[in-house]
Structure formats: structure tokens, C-alpha cells
């Protein structure tokens, strides 16, 4: 099998995070909810999470299912 699951997780959330963050910046007031530009804030959070996952996947280790 040999697919480290941190790759798809990392990639997915980095992508979505970037999408949301950029959209949050461009959309301005439309992305504000209860006083917070939630798209921007949460987009950044997702980006960080995705990045951490990718870092983990990069360093490999025992996370690939045994072949």
C-alpha cells in the first residue's frame, strides 16, 4: 500500500486554508461574522495545520502501512 496519510491530509488543508484565507482578504466585510473575519482567521489556522502535517509526512517514519 504505502501511502502516508499525512500527505493527503496536509495537502487538503493547506489548499483549503489558502483558499479561505485569500478569499477572506479579498471578500473583506463579506467574510466577517460576529465581528471576526472568520475566513481569514480560520484559513490561516488550516494552513498552519496542513503545513504541520506535510512536515510530518516529509520526515516519514512509521506512518506508512506495512507493505
Amino acid at each position: 500500500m504505502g501511502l502516508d496519510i499525512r500527505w493527503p491530509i496536509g495537502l487538503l488543508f493547506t489548499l483549503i486554508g489558502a483558499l479561505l484565507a485569500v478569499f477572506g482578504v479579498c471578500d473583506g466585510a463579506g467574510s466577517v461574522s460576529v465581528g471576526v473575519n472568520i475566513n481569514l482567521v480560520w484559513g490561516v489556522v488550516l494552513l498552519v495545520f496542513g503545513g504541520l502535517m506535510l512536515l510530518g509526512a516529509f520526515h516519514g517514519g512509521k506512518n506508512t502501512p506495512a507493505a
Partner: protein
Amino acid sequence: MQPLHLAWIDETILLTYVAFILGIGWALGRGVKTSSDFLTSGRSIPTWVTGLAFISANLGALELVGMAASGAKYGIATAHFYWLGAIPAMVFLAVFMMPFYYGSKARSVPEYLKMRFDERVRALNSVAFAVMTIFASGISMNAVAKLLNQLLGWDYNVALWVGSGVVLVYVLKGGLTSAIYTEVLQFFMIVFGFAPVVYLGLKDAGGWQAMTHALQSVAVHPAALHLKPLGTVFAPNAWTSAWRPLFGGPGANPMGVDLYAMVFGLGFVLSFGYWCTDFLVVQRAMAARNMGAARNTPLVAAVPKMLFPFLVIVPGMIAVALTSMPGKGYRIPPPIIAQTSYDKAVEAVKNGNPADPATVAATVGSALGQKVDAAKIAALVADNAAGKVDDGTIRQRLYDSVTAYDYDGVILSLMKKYCPAGLLGLALTALLASFMSGMAGNVTAFNTVFTYDLYQAYFAPGKNDRHYFVTGKVVTVAGIVLSIGASYFASMYNNAMDVIQLVFAFVNAPLFATFLLGMFWKRATGTGAFLGLLGGIAGSALFHAFTTVGSNLDAAGLVINGMKGGYLGVLYAFPSEMAQNFWLASFAFSACFTLTLLVSLATKRTKSDAQLTGLVYSLTPKIKTENQAWYARPGVVGAGLLLGCLILNVIFW
């Protein structure tokens, strides 16, 4: 509710997620070569993955929607499902039962039963499980497709077939591993999709304390919000305290249960019955790479599970608090009402006589088919007569005036209120992700049980592995098709959900008694287990036939809806459905336990001690954990988790 409109970004997020799960299936497909790879992942998955898949498999869309609904109806007491039920059960599974499941090398729960008892018990369990899991799959698919149809305007059939099609593709390619991987993805989607909604909702309500205060006012007079009948009074802590309202008996808490039913019925029988024996979740632990990993899987799962109430139950509580706060512009959504009914009601308001508000309220109520708040209608008619309101406002105020609630709509209504385009896409994708992986979980469990426990055991034993590998693929397709069929079946009956709850209670509750005796008492015999299980199932059916819920009786004391029991006569009427459910489970467990015990004592053992090694506690060598650090041993970790649970229970005491 007006249909939600999705912006391009929402759709992009959804499509990205779908592309990823299809990609995972495709990438894994290359490495899946044997039936063992396809159906049981060849026992190779890392612990944190099996752990997250373990709770994710259980987190279907219905659970997410249902927990928010229960949070609104019952408050923090809903957390008992987690802090009293699930966590202790998961710890028990990890410490005591996994050694037998994993050590016996059984490929499924029914296979363990065959090794421990005999073929009859396996047959009974596999048939019951196969049928139940397909129905569960179909019923939840139906519920979600209906939800999507009503709230997003998506065509029911399209939602059903496209959703199923996506699941079919990635499960067909990568088998159980695909399902497990996407379940982990789904776990993160749920956390990231729901957390902002909870945060924003709390912020809008004014913070946790403000929410608590609002709930305390509601508890003292729930009829003001039409949550309970007029005259109902609870102590202020009814929505915010998990234990104290139980001590006052069924009349003192919104759930309507007593302490014994909660602790024994839910905490022990139902929870242990599900988490310890339902193959849907146990299968994920069995896919771990070694015994240590298998035992750690439920423990790893227990950590996020403990915190989940804050993610899935609190939204319901927030919804009630917000509904009670005027000026927040939020109310728990009313049941779905057709636009044509709203049109008729608008007409009724416009043609209504302001001097006779009662008649107008009655006309409006019958036009909408719901009970309405007479005072609000009177005000609306007066304002209309004064020319202050346009059609749109009339519609909105009619919506606000309905006094019935569709609790299942709570989570979606909160998403609608607080999620701007972008975040909305994330939250909706999370909901859809749980829908798809719920189906994938059921289908992969069905697949393994059907291929190994029914097909290989009774129809085509002794073929080579390639044969079963192909069979597994065929059964996947069949499983999905059958689920779709079950979904259409469920769409024809309103109470499909009630039926499956009942069936689960009948079958799962007694099953745990069978396992307890089987794993810890070597004297339990096959005949005892078989008759005990059969008797437990029959006993619970009878219990259900002779008891019902108080609200199910009309003025003459006759049963209104047979699905809620009592159709053969009413020996007892419970104060609530939860109470009936918990007591039924307790009864089923006790019946099965007693019967298994007695029949086992009366029959001869068919398996010797040697044959039962590794299957029964007293005949299995203790697992060596000396080379593990003391804090990593399952017993110690389990104790730590229980302590954490205790702390949470005390905080919300």
C-alpha cells in the same frame, strides 16, 4: 427555511474534498492485492490512524445532526452518551476485550463468536448484523438526502446516487483502507468545520456564562419557548447540569429518565453493547498492526471523544440560549413547511380581521399545518392592517410564530447564521463527509461479514483467495445498491429511524451479555449463547410490545402509534422515549444474561480448555507489558482516561 445558496468557493471546497477522497482510493488501490488487504487492511495501519477512524466510523451525519438536536432538547445531559457511556466502554474494550478480538485472529466479530461458541451463534450474529448495518446505512442516507433536498434544494435522487457513486468508487478501489483513510480525513473536516460555528455562536450569545444564564431561565419556564408543555417547571440547572437533575426522577429532567435507567441502561448496556461488539467500530481496531496498537486504538480514540460534546452538543445548547434572547434574530427552526402553505397563510393574514385575532390565528395555523403563537399572529395582523408590513416581512414573522421545532435543523441553521461563504463550504463539506464515510463504514463492515462469515462459511468454503477477493468487490457493489434500496424504503416511512433504533436495541443490547459471559466465563456453552441471544432478542421484542411512552396514549388510554410500543397491551407507560429505550436495553441484557447462564449450566461444554485458549480471560496468558513504560500500558492509560472523564462529570455535575 429558505434554501441556502452556495457560492463558488463553497462548491470549490466541496469538490476539492471529493477529488481528494477519490484520489486516496485510487492511490491505495494499487497496493490492495489480497482479500485480506481489501476486507481487513491486512492488519497494517498505524495506531493514530486506526484510533481516529474508530471514532470517525461512528460519527455519521445523523450523529452530528442528532447530537445537536439532543443538546437543544436535553442540554448537557446529552453528554452522558459520551462521558458515562462511550469512554468507559472504549476503555473496557481496549483493556479487556481487544486481546480476544485481535489475539484470536478472528477477521470479524461473528468469526470470534464462531471460535468461542459455534456456528449457530455466528450465523445469528452475522445475519442480524448484515441486515442491520445495511438498513442503518440506507436510513442515514435517506435522512441526509432529505436534509440536503429541503435545505439546499438539491434533488433527492441526485444527492443519493452521486453520494453513493463517490463512495462506491473509492471503496471499490482501496477497500477497508480507503474507508479508514477517508474517515480520518473526515474527522479533521468535522473538527475544523464545526469548531468555528461553536466559537461564533458562543461569541454571539455573549460567552459561556451568558449562555448558561439564559439556559437557567429557560429551565425554570420552558413553556415560554414552547419547549415543554405549559406548567412544566425544572430546576434552573436542568439544561446545564448533567447529574443533579437525574436525582429528582424522570419528572425533574428534560430527558425524562431516572438515575438507574441512565447508568445501567445507557451507561452500561447500550454503550458497552455498541462500542464493544459492533463490528463497524471494532473492525477499525482489528486493522491495527499489532496487539499493542489494537489495544491502544480505542484509547487513542477516547481522547477526542471526550472533548466532542463541546463540538457537537454545545451547538444545541447555544441554539436554545439564542432562541431565548430577543434581538439575536435566531430561533430553533420550525418544521419544514411548503412555500404554498406559507402563501395561504400570508393570504389569511391579509384577509384577517384585526378585531378577531383568535380566528385569524386558527386559520393561519391550519394553513401552515402547525401550532402558532396567537399573540404574535395578532400583532402581525394589526401591523398588516396598519400597512406596516410587506409580504416578505409577513412571511418572516409567520416563520417566527410557529411554536413547533425541528431540532434536527439546529446545526444547519447555526451554520446558515454564522458561516459566511467560504466557511459555509467547509462546514457543509464536513457534514457531507460524515454522510459519505458513514456509508463507507457500513458497507465495508457489511462486506467483511458477508464475504467471510456468510459466503465463505456457508456458501463457498475452501476456494482460493482470489475468489474471495473478487467476491469482496462484488459484495461492495451489492452493499451500496442495497443501501440505496434501503434508503428508498426508509423514505416511504416516516418512522424508519425509530424502527432501526428499535432493532438495534433488540439486537445489540442482549449481544453484550453474550460477549461478557463468553469472554469471562469458560463454562458458557454454544447452546447457552445461542438460546440466550435468541431469548434476549425475543424478550426485548415482547418488552416493547407491552410497554409504551405516556405521550403515546390518547385520552382513552389507547396506543396512538404502534412503533412506540404497547401494541399488544400496555403494562407500563414510561415518561419518555429515552426512558423506554434505556429500560428495554436493561431488560434485554438481563434476559440474555440469565438465559445464557442457566442454559449453559444445563448443557455440556463442547469446547475443551485447550480450544478456548486465547478466547477466554482465564485461559489466556496475560499480555506481557514489562518492556513497556508503565505509563504506556493500556491499563494505566485507561485509568487516566477514566479519571479525565470523572473530572468532566464533576465539572458539569
